[in-house]
Structures are given as structure tokens and as C-alpha cells.
């Protein structure tokens, strides 16, 4: 399989891209070329089919779509701003623009997906929502969206993440969510997804699983892409208006890949726009020290999808590391696996320290505290700018960094002590 992917002809690559742009992917089997599909336990097969049917009805329901757009405007605060990063532009010798998902209600792009899926859950008559969270941004967004549409929710969160993203745990409680710590497995996002699936398996008829990234069995990667594409659609129009043209490159961080797919997907047909996804390089390139799935992974199956994945020779999923909880995941969405394979998007990784450095630079010169996840995109863009001076760069600033204060305080005081 690996060899077949590496030896893909240019004609095949072009055909895959055409199908992606034309909306022919995911195909009937939920695939993006070789990737994707639905590797779910039998108990969930019927629920997933019902979900897929429900999405089609939801997208065709004009009244509901009008209501969703109204909520995105009045409750989420969309469109989010496109900010000209004057300080960074000067420092990097580039023309830098930030798509400000940090300004969306609850502080990250996650709300676009959470609100849309909460609408869908209501339409499908679900009695409760279950979700997983890593950084807690998806958990907070889900808690808020469920409160808004009036449906109870339970959020699974790894014990390690509960500690490093403490502010978000309290926010979830305040918003009425039931937060369940997960101590099994690696006690981070991956274990939280395992547990959310188990909970869904127990009640597939009345529970709605509100998955937070562009991963999971079909139709989730597609649903999340559709709901997050508002980012790229807005940004594309905004940058044409504000800067007078399209960017030379779009850059976003990639955990499961939802904010990146939301930014990239609506611009795939703009062949003049290069695209760069930034994964978490963690402490460095050694196995287990990072979560750079597309750089170091191979095709495999986890959480219902066939995609790039970090695992060992025996098929056991690799423990990962990233300073950012939201990128600390061994898998990635199947559409990204295809985009990498066909060469439409390039993926790099950025280490913890370099990301934290970019975070400080953004604070100091833009007056914006970005999430550590988003700081990976900033750092990746900065490196690209060094190689490609004078270009127009669009960066997906996926969220704000308030949630990261415990981690930042720890790293700062560690630094000070070291100095």
C-alpha cells in the first residue's frame, strides 16, 4: 500500500484533486482515494448510516441553514476578522494576514463545528450529546453549543489534558457540561476519543457523538470539513478585498486537521495558492517525542478511519508528545492524508520551543495571545517566509491562548530559573 501511494502517477494525483474539488470525495464508501472509510464496530454501523442520511437532510433544509447562519453571525460573531499583521510583516519581510478564529465565541474555530453538529443532533432527535476534547476548546465549544440549542452533554477529557488545560475544564462545568476524566490509555485526546466511542456504543440510538476534528469514521471527516469551510470561504473573500488579491500561501496547524481543512478546502481550486500544514514536532524527531503524523506515520486504522497514523511494528498506536494538547494526537484526517499524497499540501513540523517562541513574538508585536496550537502555524509561516521573502501569507489563527496559561506559566518560570 505504501509503495502504491509513493508511485502514484501525476495523472492519478490530478484526478484525485479534481474529485476533491468537484465534491466527488468522499465517495459512496466514504473514501478520499485510498483513505477514509468507516471502520466502526457493528453496533455503530446503523447509527453512522443514519447520521449520513441526516447530514444530507440537514444541508438541504433551507430554513435550518438560514437559522444556522444567523447563529453563526449573532452568537458566534462571524465573520471573524482578517487582521493585517503589521508587526510580523515587518519582522519577517512578508505581507502577513491572520484569520482570527481566536475571536470566535469560546475562543477557537471549534465552535463552527460544534454549533453545526449541535443543530444536527437536535434535528435527529438525539437525547444527549457526547464529545471528546484535547485542549478543551472543543469541549467548551460543545458545552456552549449544547447549552444554546438545549441538549445535555458529556465531555470526555484525558487526565493529562485536564491538568494542562485547567481553565477550560472550569469553563465546561460552568456551561453545564458533565466532564469525565479519562485515566486509561495515554490519558490524552486519543484515550478520550476511545472513551467517547465506548459511550456512544452503549446508546447509539439516542446519543449523538459530536466529534471535534476531521477524523473518525465516515461521515465525520466530511461533516467537519463542511462545517469548518466557513473559515476558508470568509478568508478568501476578505483577503481579496483587503489585500487586493489571493495569498501566495495559506498556513494552518494540523492536529486532527479540522481548522486546516476548513482553511484549505475552499481554496484547493486556486492553483496559485500554496498550502502548508504544520504538525507538532514536540521535543524532536524521535518516535514518541512528537505527533507529526504526516511526516513520520504510515497508513493504518484508528478511530474508524484509514489514514496516516503513528504506530509501531506490531500495529500498536504510538504514544505522542506535544506541548499543545490540541495537536497531541497520533492520527490525522483522511483528506489530509490524500492532500499530502497528491502533493497539493505540504506538511512540516515545528518543535515545542519554536512554537512557544512564535507565541511570544505574536504577543509582543501584534498584541494577540494565540493558542499554542496556532503558534505552530505562526512558526511554520515564519520559516517559510525566510525562504520565500516578500510573499503574501495567510495564517489560520485557530484560537486564543488564554487556555494555555498553566503551560505558559510553567515554561516561563522554567526559563527564568534556567537563565
Amino acid at each position, binding site marked *: 500500500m505504501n509503495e502504491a501511494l509513493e508511485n502514484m502517477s501525476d495523472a492519478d494525483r490530478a484526478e484525485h484533486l479534481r474529485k476533491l474539488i468537484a465534491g466527488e470525495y468522499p465517495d459512496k464508501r466514504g473514501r478520499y482515494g485510498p483513505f477514509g472509510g468507516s471502520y466502526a464496530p457493528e453496533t455503530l454501523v446503523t447509527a453512522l448510516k443514519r447520521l449520513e442520511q441526516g447530514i444530507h437532510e440537514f444541508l438541504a433544509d433551507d430554513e435550518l441553514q438560514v437559522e444556522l447562519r444567523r447563529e453563526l453571525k449573532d452568537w458566534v460573531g462571524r465573520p471573524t476578522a482578517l487582521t493585517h499583521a503589521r508587526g510580523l510583516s515587518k519582522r519577517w519581510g512578508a505581507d502577513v494576514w491572520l484569520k482570527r478564529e481566536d475571536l470566535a465565541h469560546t475562543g477557537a474555530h471549534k465552535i463552527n463545528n460544534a454549533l453545526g453538529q449541535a443543530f444536527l443532533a437536535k434535528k435527529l432527535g438525539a437525547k444527549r450529546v457526547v464529545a471528546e476534547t484535547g485542549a478543551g476548546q472543543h469541549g467548551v465549544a460543545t458545552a456552549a453549543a449544547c447549552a444554546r440549542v438545549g441538549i445535555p452533554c458529556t465531555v470526555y477529557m484525558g487526565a493529562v489534558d485536564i491538568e494542562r488545560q485547567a481553565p477550560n475544564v472550569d469553563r465546561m462545568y460552568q456551561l453545564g457540561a458533565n466532564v469525565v476524566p479519562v485515566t486509561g490509555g495515554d490519558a490524552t485526546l486519543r484515550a478520550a476519543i476511545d472513551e467517547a466511542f465506548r459511550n456512544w456504543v452503549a446508546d447509539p440510538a439516542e446519543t449523538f457523538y459530536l466529534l471535534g476534528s476531521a477524523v473518525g469514521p465516515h461521515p465525520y471527516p466530511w461533516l467537519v470539513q463542511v462545517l469548518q469551510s466557513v473559515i476558508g470561504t470568509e478568508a478568501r473573500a476578505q483577503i481579496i478585498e483587503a489585500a487586493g488579491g489571493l495569498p501566495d500561501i495559506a498556513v494552518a496547524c494540523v492536529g486532527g486537521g479540522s481548522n486546516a481543512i476548513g482553511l484549505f478546502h475552499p481554496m484547493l481550486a486556486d492553483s496559485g495558492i500554496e498550502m502548508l500544514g504544520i504538525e507538532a514536532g514536540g521535543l524532536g524527531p524521535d518516535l514518541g517525542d512528537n505527533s507529526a503524523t504526516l511526516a513520520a506515520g504510515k497508513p*493504518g486504522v484508528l478511530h474508524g478511519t484509514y489514514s496516516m497514523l503513528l504506530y509501531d511494528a506490531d500495529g500498536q498506536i504510538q504514544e505522542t508528545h506535544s506541548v499543545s494538547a490540541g495537536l497531541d494526537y497520533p492520527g490525522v484526517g483522511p483528506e489530509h492524508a490524500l492532500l499530502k499524497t497528491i502533493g497539493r499540501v505540504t506538511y512540516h513540523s515545528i518543535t515545542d520551543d519554536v512554537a512557544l517562541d512564535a507565541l511570544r513574538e505574536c504577543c509582543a508585536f501584534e498584541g494577540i495571545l494565540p493558542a499554542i496550537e496556532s503558534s505552530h502555524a505562526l512558526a511554520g509561516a515564519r520559516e517559510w517566509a525566510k525562504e520565500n521573502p516578500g510573499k503574501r501569507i495567510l495564517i489560520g489563527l485557530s484560537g486564543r491562548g488564554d487556555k494555555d496559561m498553566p503551560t505558559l506559566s510553567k515554561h516561563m518560570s522554567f526559563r527564568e530559573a534556567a537563565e
Partner: protein
Amino acid sequence: MQLHQKISVALNAATAAGRVGLVPFVTAGYPIKDEFIKVLSEICKDGDVVEVGVPFSDPMADGITIQRSSHSAIEQGVTLNWIIDQLAASDIDTPIVLMSYLNPLLAYGYEALAADAAKAGVCGFIVPDLPWEESEHLRAALETQGLGLVQLVTPATPEDRLEMLCKVSQGFIYAVTVTGVTGGDQSMPAEVVDYLDVVKRHASIPVCAGFGVREPSQVAMLGKHADGVIVGSALLEKIESGEDAAAFLRGLQG
């Protein structure tokens, strides 16, 4: 005879003898890696077919007992390669079904897996995260060796789909008794017997009921509506606490 037919034959023999077929499940190498074959031989005394669990890091269809046993086995270095080597070197002649999540099978390589497993005495596979629609590649490899892919049906499976799965399953049909993960200890809902009767009506190979089977009374009840029962978490818990696994299994059959 195809390897998967050995499974059906063994379960049919239990029926012919007026017994409920017994399919014990153990996670390979749990609780002690070096005692894998000893534990397996012990449960083979009473098992008509045995199910060997390949540990996986993310067992998303399993409850806490199998999560714990899988984690422990991985920590001790149990791998699919090792399991197949151990089985190949043993003289166990009870039909063996390997239960594994898909990724360890992918990592092994389907063709090599089918060849090596067949030589090691494996007769079939159960893959909880591989629904029928995604199983083409694995089946193609297994078929070259006559190995079966056991299909699971659940109370959430609509009847037309259930009928299809009953037709295509090999070895036996795994009728999941509860809507949920393995190892639950809630009492079996009364509707379970009606559901099993539906499965039985569509089945032309033995039907085994599993998930949450713990008590002789459950075995007696399920045995009236299915050909066999699968006992996993409850057995692992006995083994963990050092109780006599064989005696527990015998006790289940009343």
C-alpha cells in the same frame, strides 16, 4: 474441510451432545506472558472453540477488564507475531479464533498473516472494528487459507442487515447480546431471547451469544436460543484473582 468449518463442526458437536457450546476468551499472555499456553490449555479442556485476544492499545469496543488485560499484555511485550509463534509451537487442537482490532493485522500484512495463522492452528478471525463493507481485502487473504471471518450482529442491527451478515459469516455468527462494550454486568434484557431467535432463524451455521456473560443462569437461558456462549471478561476476572478457570467454565454449563 476448510479451516473455518472446524469451528462450526466443533460447535455442532456440542449441540449434538445436548450441551451449550462454550467459547472462552482470553487475552494472550494475560496475566503472565510466559503462562499463555498453560492458561490456554487449561481453558481448552472445557472450550469447544477458544478465542484468543490480540492486545491492542486502543480497544474501543471493550470494557475495562479487556482494556486492562490488553494494556498489561502489551506492557509485557505480547505481539501478534509472538502469539502466532506460541500457538504454532503448542499442541492445542481445539479450534482457535483470533480476535484482533484491525491495525495489528494491517501491520503484520494480510497475506503473511493468513499463511502463518493457518499453520499455527488458527481457524478464523473476529475483528471488532471491521464492518463487512470494509472487509474485502482481509477476506481475500483469509480465503486463500480457508480461514473464516466471523461476523458480529448486534441488537442495533436492522433485520435485513442481520440476515445478510448471517449469510456471509463463517465459523459461527457472533450475536452480541447487549448494546454496549464487552464486560458489562447489567442483567441481560428480556428481549435478548427474541433477538437471538431472529438471528437463529437466519443462520445456517452456529450462533454464539457473547458480551456480559457471567452466570450459569445466563448460560442456561441463552443456551435455549443460541448454540454457544462466549465468556470473556468474567473469565479474565477469575484468572486475575487466581481462581480455578476450568472449574468456573465447568460451573457455567451447570
